[in-house]
């Protein structure tokens, strides 16, 4: 095999580069967001595949490249899978992402190991998806990565690389993606009222991981701020009449929480100093986090049999009567919390009567005084004396 043959292989590679140069910018600006219009951009040159040159080598099974760590980097891609992927369907050429490869031989690989290679390459996603990429910089994955944790998720860990497809379809795919690294939490979630509904029926109303944790800018859920704002997060769905009606769940839960001691404290703390740690219970302190159950489930943390146990997590001295001090998100009525209802009723009657009576009495006094003063003014004898 002579130099000439090498040269022949290079021609399509150069053509591919040229294609990227001409067509890619238009594609990529339009594709700044991950969800793109369904019509793929017309294939630039239908006669031949600009990736053919790459595929010729990178489809030979078993090809690997040794890395200094001793690991081997697989050089093989499943080109059919790529053609099915969101990028493949839009005919984005290999060099659209592998921008460092412009000819053959390729530049040396500088990565120490396999993960290093991924960490070097994933930043290219930013070129077309700057918003998503920058959002991830605020995430706790990025924080962990910057802190030296190389296992922290990067774009390709969640989305894949050559086989990227719509991450939301089917809906439970979202949580399955997270489960790749968070298996223990996923094990709890899939038993929960939310997780079971998602995984068994792909329920559109329950939260997947990202509905609570966010998508790219996934914040640390252990901060005081996350805790203080969490009731609003739960309240977003749980005060949605339409959504809750399907399951017969009260939409008063948020309002009754805010009107009660715990909720009042948390709401005010969030307003005045959202980063200050506070012990006061938020939704998930009582209901559980990933293991949240339907309130009547025998395993629920808030079911009557477990409620004292749950209260004691913060109030270890609490006794058997203590849990009933909590009005269970009910607005007091004669059936639920009659004592509270009748006390409120009592004051609703007594206050207007008392204050009304006082004001009526005062009005009589005032009118009497005004009338007396007027009369005095009209009596001539009095007038003279007043003037003295």
């Amino acid at each position, binding site marked *: 095999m002579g130099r000439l043959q090498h040269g022949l292989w290079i021609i399509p590679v150069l053509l591919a580069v040229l294609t990227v140069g001409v067509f890619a910018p238009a594609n990529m600006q339009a594709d700044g967001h991950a969800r793109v219009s369904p019509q793929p951009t017309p294939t630039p040159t239908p006669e031949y595949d600009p990736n053919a040159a790459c595929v010729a080598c990178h489809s030979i099974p078993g090809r690997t490249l040794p890395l200094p760590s001793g690991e081997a980097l697989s050089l093989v891609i499943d080109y059919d899978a790529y053609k099915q992927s969101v990028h493949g369907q839009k005919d984005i050429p290999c060099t659209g992402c592998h921008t460092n490869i412009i000819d053959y031989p390729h530049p040396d690989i500088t990565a120490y190991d396999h993960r290093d290679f991924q960490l070097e390459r994933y930043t290219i996603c930013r070129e077309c998806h700057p918003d998503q990429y920058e959002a991830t910089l605020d995430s706790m994955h990025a924080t962990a990565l910057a802190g030296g944790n190389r296992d922290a998720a990067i774009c390709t860990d969640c989305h894949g690389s050559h086989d990227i497809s719509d991450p939301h379809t089917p809906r439970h795919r979202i949580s399955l993606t997270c489960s790749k690294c968070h298996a223990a939490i996923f094990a709890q979630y899939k038993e929960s009222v939310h997780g079971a509904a998602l995984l068994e029926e792909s329920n559109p109303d329950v939260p997947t991981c990202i509905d609570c944790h966010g998508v790219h800018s996934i914040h640390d859920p252990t901060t005081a701020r996350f805790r203080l704002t969490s009731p609003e997060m739960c309240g977003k769905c749980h005060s949605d009449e339409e959504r809750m009606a399907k399951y017969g769940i009260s939409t008063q839960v948020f309002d009754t929480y805010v009107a009660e001691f715990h909720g*009042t404290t948390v709401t005010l703390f969030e307003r*005045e100093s959202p980063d200050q740690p506070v012990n006061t219970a938020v939704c998930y302190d009582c209901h559980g986090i990933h293991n949240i159950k339907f309130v009547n489930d025998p395993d629920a943390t808030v079911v009557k049999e477990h409620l004292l146990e749950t209260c004691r997590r913060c109030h270890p001295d609490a006794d058997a009567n203590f849990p009933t001090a909590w009005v269970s998100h009910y607005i007091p009525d004669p059936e639920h919390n009659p004592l509270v209802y009748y006390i409120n009723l009592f004051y609703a009657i007594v206050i207007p009567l008392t204050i009304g009576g006082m004001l009526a009495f005062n009005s009589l006094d005032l009118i009497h005084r005004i009338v007396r003063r007027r009369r005095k003014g009209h009596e001539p004898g009095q007038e003279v004396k007043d003037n003295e």
Partner: protein
Amino acid sequence: MSERSTSAPKKEYVRFGLSDRIAHFLVMVSFTMLVITGIPQKYVPANWAEVMVLWMGGIERVRIVHRIAALVLIAASIYHVLVAGYNLYVRRAPLSMLPKWKDVTDAFETIQHYLGLREEPPKYDRYNFAEKLEYWAMVWGTLIMAVTGFMLWNPITTTKFLPGEFIPAALAAHGGEALLAFLSILAWHVYNVHLRTFNRSMFTGKLTREEMEEEHWLELERIEKGETPPLIPDPRRRMIYIPLAVAFTLISLFLLYLFVTYEETAIATVPPQPVEVEIYTPATPTPTPKPDLVHIFYERKVEARPVTHDIVAERRDCLFCHGLGRLDPYSPIHAELGLNNASCLDCHAPEKK
């Protein structure tokens, strides 16, 4: 009226002693603080209430100020009981604050007078019906607020003796009574002693003759007839009263101390325990290929063909030409072992020239 003001000399009458004025001052300050810090807490989801709480420095400070003010009010109440006990028992003061049937008739007659159905207003004694109403409402209200306040301050202790529902019930009563008290003070106290006439006697201790005539005619009459001898403490009764008062004070202060410190985990709760779940648990760790080809060949002592051409940069990729189906494919023995392009040279050394 004008006839009297011209003829009678400006004479003042003692109405409140120093101890009454001190008690009133403490109640006035603590009640105001309780209203300012308490009413917003009752209405807190409302915007104005949140603004007030934030303006006062946050809910924690508001709660602390509310509790301190509550203690001052309770202390003032204890002080008032001591002073009243001394006046009534040791100085043998008349029970002038007790409600009488005359108060009921006075109230009706006053209304009749206002409506023009009666020529003269009724003549009031040392405390008229409006003042008695306010005093006993204050006593009753303070009792309710102290008891429900204790329940809210010590919910765990309370539920050791009472059903849990008493806590939200106490909160309802505390809020309802607070609103009633606040509005009553505005509608009754403020009108009667600030707007109608500005009555300074709680600060100066004295009333003028005109004020006495209008509001406390019967008392004035008795004073002028010399029917009110000065109250002289009875030494024997004082000997009995003082140890009782000391005991009462000590017990009250001890109860007050318990009120504040008895319970630990209602307000200062233990922090919520962290959830014990591994965060990073990769479900299926991705296997990374290991290049072991070289070792296998080495162990099998297979002699490798040397490389007969120069290994220039373009020719580092051995499989480019020697892969299966290529120019000069490798022997099938490689296939069962998997392939590693770069380890070729470990066995296939360049031919020495």
